[in-house]
């Protein structure tokens, strides 16, 4: 028999900042979960299971922190699953939770992802020690910059494209009260004059390091019928992985990303993503990844992604708004960043994105990636229930 349709009826997130010194890890996650329950007008007792995700445990220095968080998330006496798929984890966590409803194992599931990066130093946490890796890299930027340069060389994109993305996303973040960075005085010139960190990635083209959490309530048709606000419906979801390094790997446009998007579009009946999708929340930790992912996800032909950015198509009032929330460039609690993309896509089709609402958004894509451009998770959500 067919899968149970899955609805998102509650979304909550924290006000993301560099350091939430006023709350414990438990306090942080409970804040997001409480807001999601409030949005869905449910209580802890309505939750059948909890699926939690975060990136490496070293970021907070707590091994398997879900054990300690069981009480704070109302999970005592319930099933609790902990997902970890690197940077894509926020998205993967939501998909694991969605499958619990789709398989009719549970009716209503709380899913949550978080990172409290102020507890340690994420950049050095991501710089693997000898003997695992040569001591050549400083953080994720050091890993991804060469692939950005490969993209620029391949496509001949003008040097300024990255700064356009950063300037757009940081301005979108001004409309999002939960975003970490609210840079009111930012100009394009300031982005372009900011210090070079990993050529060609400048300081203002790099994601911040944030403390934050994101939570969603996923439920079945019965739950959706009782929801106080319009739900978002899951029309497709998929994960794909490929190895970190191998001869022939295309770091600029990884096959796993293409396959993952193709699977999601097939499930959702999308044949022309550029025309049929109204808003995209994609994982862009370094500005240039917007044009790169536009191509990888099938919104532009190979080599053409930067033209969409340059012509303003991806602006909030453009033809294909990308990262209306301000994206990872404005908010990056790593473990939660993927779920924030998924949640922001859902907010758009629910019409509840506030000032950064895309007019008439009916179908939106949430995208996350992680590791060495090797782990991908995506979902496509719609304002209408999927055809069963």
């Amino acid at each position, binding site marked *: 028999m067919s899968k149970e349709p899955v609805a998102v009826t509650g979304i909550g997130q924290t006000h993301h900042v560099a350091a939430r010194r006023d709350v414990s*890890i438990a306090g942080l996650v409970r804040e997001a979960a409480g807001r999601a329950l409030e949005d869905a007008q449910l209580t802890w007792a309505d939750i059948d299971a909890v699926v939690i995700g975060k990136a490496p445990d070293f970021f907070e220095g707590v091994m398997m922190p879900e054990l300690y968080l069981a009480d704070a998330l109302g999970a005592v006496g319930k099933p609790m699953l902990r997902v970890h798929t690197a940077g894509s984890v926020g998205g993967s966590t939501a998909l694991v939770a969605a499958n619990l409803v789709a398989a009719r194992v549970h009716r209503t599931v709380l899913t949550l992802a978080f990172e409290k990066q102020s507890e340690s130093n994420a950049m050095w946490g991501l710089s*693997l020690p000898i003997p695992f890796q040569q001591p050549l890299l400083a953080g994720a930027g050091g890993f991804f910059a060469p692939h950005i340069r490969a993209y620029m060389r391949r496509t001949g994109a003008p040097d300024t494209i990255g700064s356009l993305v950063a300037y757009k996303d940081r301005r979108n973040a001004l409309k999002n009260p939960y975003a970490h960075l609210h840079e009111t005085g930012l100009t394009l010139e300031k982005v372009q004059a900011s210090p070079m960190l990993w050529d060609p990635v400048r300081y203002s083209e790099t994601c911040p390091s944030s403390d934050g959490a994101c939570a969603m309530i996923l439920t079945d048709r019965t739950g959706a019928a009782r929801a106080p606000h319009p739900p978002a419906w899951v029309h497709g979801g998929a994960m794909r992985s490929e190895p970190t390094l191998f001869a022939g790997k295309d770091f600029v446009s990884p096959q796993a990303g293409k396959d993952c998007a193709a*699977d999601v579009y097939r499930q959702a009946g999308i044949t022309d993503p550029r025309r049929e999708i109204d808003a995209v929340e994609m994982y862009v930790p370094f500005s240039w990844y917007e044009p790169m992912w536009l191509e990888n996800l099938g919104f532009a032909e190979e080599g053409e992604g930067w033209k969409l950015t340059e012509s303003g198509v991806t602006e909030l009032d453009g033809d294909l708004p990308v990262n209306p929330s301000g994206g990872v460039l404005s908010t990056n609690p790593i473990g939660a960043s993927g779920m924030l993309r998924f949640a922001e896509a859902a907010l758009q089709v629910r019409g509840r994105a506030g000032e950064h609402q895309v007019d008439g958004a009916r179908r939106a894509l949430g995208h996350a990636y992680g590791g060495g451009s090797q782990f991908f998770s995506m979902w496509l959500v719609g304002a209408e229930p999927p055809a069963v």
Partner: protein
Amino acid sequence: MPGPSTGPSGPSTGPLREVAIVAFGQSDHVRSSAETSEVEMLMPVLHDVVSRTGLKAGDIDFTCSGSSDYLAGRAFSFTMALDGVGAWPPISESHVEMDGAWALYEAWVKLLTGEAETALVYAYGKSSPGDLREVLTRQLDPYYLAPLWPDSVALAALQAQALIDAGLTDQGALAGIAARSRTAAEANPHAQLRGAVPAGDPVVAPLRTGDCPPIGDGAAAVVLAAGDTARRLCDRPAWIRGLDHRIEAHALGVRDLTDSPSTRLAAERAGYFARPVDTAELHAPFTSQEVVLRRALALDGPDGAGVRINPSGGALAANPVMAAGLIRLGEAAARIQRGESDRALAHATSGPCLQQNLVAVLEGETR
């Protein structure tokens, strides 16, 4: 078929799909595997388990693993292990930072949705590079408990003493559990401790050396398949009739350490109490924890008399952290496949003093 989660909060409609364990493989579990990387430890196990089904790596629809960065001592340690799978062309894949039993749970759910027909589940853990007792203190409440560094043996000893104080066991009975487990392990070529070991000196009273699991490195893998695919891949699939897991409060002070309500609830949801099993593979790293689990699962009652407990030797014979729970499911399934069991319970645990527990009920078709 009894569903995994019926009742008030259970599913609204619909029979679930039949899913079975069709193959199980594991490494030899050793005190130290310093000579091999995680990938080198894992690859032979993966090749073995997949070849048992006649499938090729590319035929597997979904892959899910369980492991811990804290054991490996590096972030994203599972990304390298993926090299052991051969994820090219790209695969549909996920990972839990939990024992592999929970990776199996995620894969089982994936098969129930109908999105996959087969799944590869694996888990691995190398405890040898660090001091496991110290490492495991890092999974405690970081504000109130972890700063005190109470280690895993000390916490298990608190639980054992609570059982003794309540008159539920004594050191003789615990030694009996240790002896039974390691004697059983004589027939298990993968076990780390085989044959009787002396009770030894107290490690943390009242637990003696013999009450504690060996510290070691190892890996395990299973293949899951749905419906007729399972029948095609295996002569006697071990059907997962029920699978559920539950977590308890973290603070030991608010728990009754002599009981395991989460195990009992998971077992109820998995349909375990509907009729007797003939085999129980319990993930009890300490002898005293088997006492707790037997109580929760009513294995000491009249129905428990005919139950073979831990014929593999259990975690007292080999306890590769992050894989030991998955091994319980694999061992139970392997007995069903060999025709040595018709209905078996398999259990996995995580966290201090059995905080989180998973129960599976496996059955072979009537011959």
